[in-house]
């Protein structure tokens, strides 16, 4: 547990608090409307036809990108950082997974199929998934170019200025970074790439941070050089 002193607050009567709260409510409602508007804008993005063939290793053996839709029209991919030589999946991505693992069943009923994709071999993914108690679908992109084409894995030896991440350059030299990509499959089985987000673009998909945004200390990460330093795999916190 982190220990930062709470800033002493001016205590007020319930009536005064209500006045301040209602002022904030106006700003919150405005924010909600802006978010709705941005969601509409996002859906207006043009789509790009996926011409390449990708084959993944998954629980059903070899699966093409089209197979991952599992009969639905929309596919959301979480680019989970797990490089082939790592002993375990990235702790931050695991935090994201703790957020999405329980809600995928609901997405499935709005025509959305969900899968995580990592470069590590399927055997490693399965073992780690079992350890963490997750049930979402997780496939390995192995040696295919999927992760590189969607800008979440980076070849060694290339200066970061020449690499693309979050529509700019990666913040530091690394083999893998997180992201989310969305695909659509039409009745003729054409697959389109519709959207990708990275970095703080996937911030709101970690609902836990929205919860932290409600408490007095907020995200409370300023004291750390790397914001998520406090984070552990959910089975690695001290009891």
């Amino acid at each position, binding site marked *: *547990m982190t220990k930062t002193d*709470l800033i002493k607050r001016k205590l*007020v009567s319930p009536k*005064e*608090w209500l006045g*301040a*709260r209602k002022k*904030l*409510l106006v*700003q*919150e409602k405005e924010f*909600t409307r*802006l*978010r709705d508007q*941005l969601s*509409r804008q996002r*859906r*207006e*993005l*043009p*789509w*790009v*036809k996926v011409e390449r063939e990708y084959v993944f290793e998954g629980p059903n053996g070899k699966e093409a990108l089209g197979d991952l839709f599992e009969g639905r029209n929309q596919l*959301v991919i979480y680019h989970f950082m797990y490089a082939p030589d790592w002993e375990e999946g990235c702790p931050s991505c695991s935090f994201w997974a*703790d*957020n*999405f*693992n*329980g*809600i995928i*069943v609901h*997405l*499935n*009923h*709005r*025509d*959305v199929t969900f899968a995580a994709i990592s470069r590590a071999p399927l055997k490693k993914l399965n073992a780690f998934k079992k350890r963490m108690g997750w049930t979402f679908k997780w496939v390995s992109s192995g040696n295919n170019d999927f992760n590189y084409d969607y800008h979440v894995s980076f070849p060694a030896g290339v200066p970061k200025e020449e690499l693309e991440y979050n*529509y700019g350059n990666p913040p530091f030299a690394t083999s893998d970074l997180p992201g989310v990509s*969305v695909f*659509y499959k039409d009745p003729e089985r054409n697959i389109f790439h519709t*959207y990708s987000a990275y970095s*703080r*673009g996937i*911030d*709101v*998909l970690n*609902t*836990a941070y929205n*919860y*932290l*945004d*409600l*408490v*007095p*200390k907020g*995200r*409370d990460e300023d004291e750390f050089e790397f914001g998520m330093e*406090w*984070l552990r795999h959910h089975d690695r*916190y001290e009891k």
Partner: protein
Amino acid sequence: MATHNTGTREEWLAARLELLEAEKELTRRSDQVAQRRQKLPWVRIEKEYRFETDEGSATLADLFRGRSQLLVYHYMFGPDYTAGCATCSTIADGFNGFVVHLANHDVALSAVSRAPFAKIQAYQRRMGWTFSWASSFGNEFNFDFNVSFSEQQQREGSIDYNYERGGHAMDETTQLPDIVVQNAAMCGTDGPTYTRDRPGMSAFVLEDGVIYHTYSTYARGLDGLWGMYQWLDRAPKGRNEAELYQTGGLWWRRHDEYAKR
């Protein structure tokens, strides 16, 4: 789905970069609202509340479990419901997985409902959840934080929910929206009984043995806390429920109630 514009990767990228600016702007605005939220003044809690939990009788201070901050999810589960609210259940499916991280970042999260604890416990077991869930059965906690209302308040039209009197669809007494009636039926109850409880989230802080109320949010204020919607907002069809709403349909079910497909 109607046909959609397609383009080259270059065309897509140009549109995407434009959207990226708007997204960054919204992220900054979200940070600003969060900062303003943290600047809200605090109100001292003078009342003593007794809850029933899996560790026996507990005070509000006990719900902090050694942390200095407490988030209470006001889970709709009235004493007369036969099951917890199905809509709240979709929110709980999200936080059930990450409360462990909040607990290790000085935030205890507890759901609180008016149903007797035995009912809560049975329902929680059915859903396979492990988060803390306390019963406020018989105490005034839910009424004080504007998430439970009396029959008299319903009759008089004196319900203040989401900082507004009579401003919410659930305040309606003569004709409740179909979606509310469906939600009620999924809890084995009728509309008026169902709407005497409401969803919300409240934040408290414990400092030198004193508890302060810092924040409460209701209605669409919970939207960003509802994981499934944030993901759907990124899919081509979006929330994909407008038509259903027009016909009064409710698409979600409790996670163990979907027909297998």
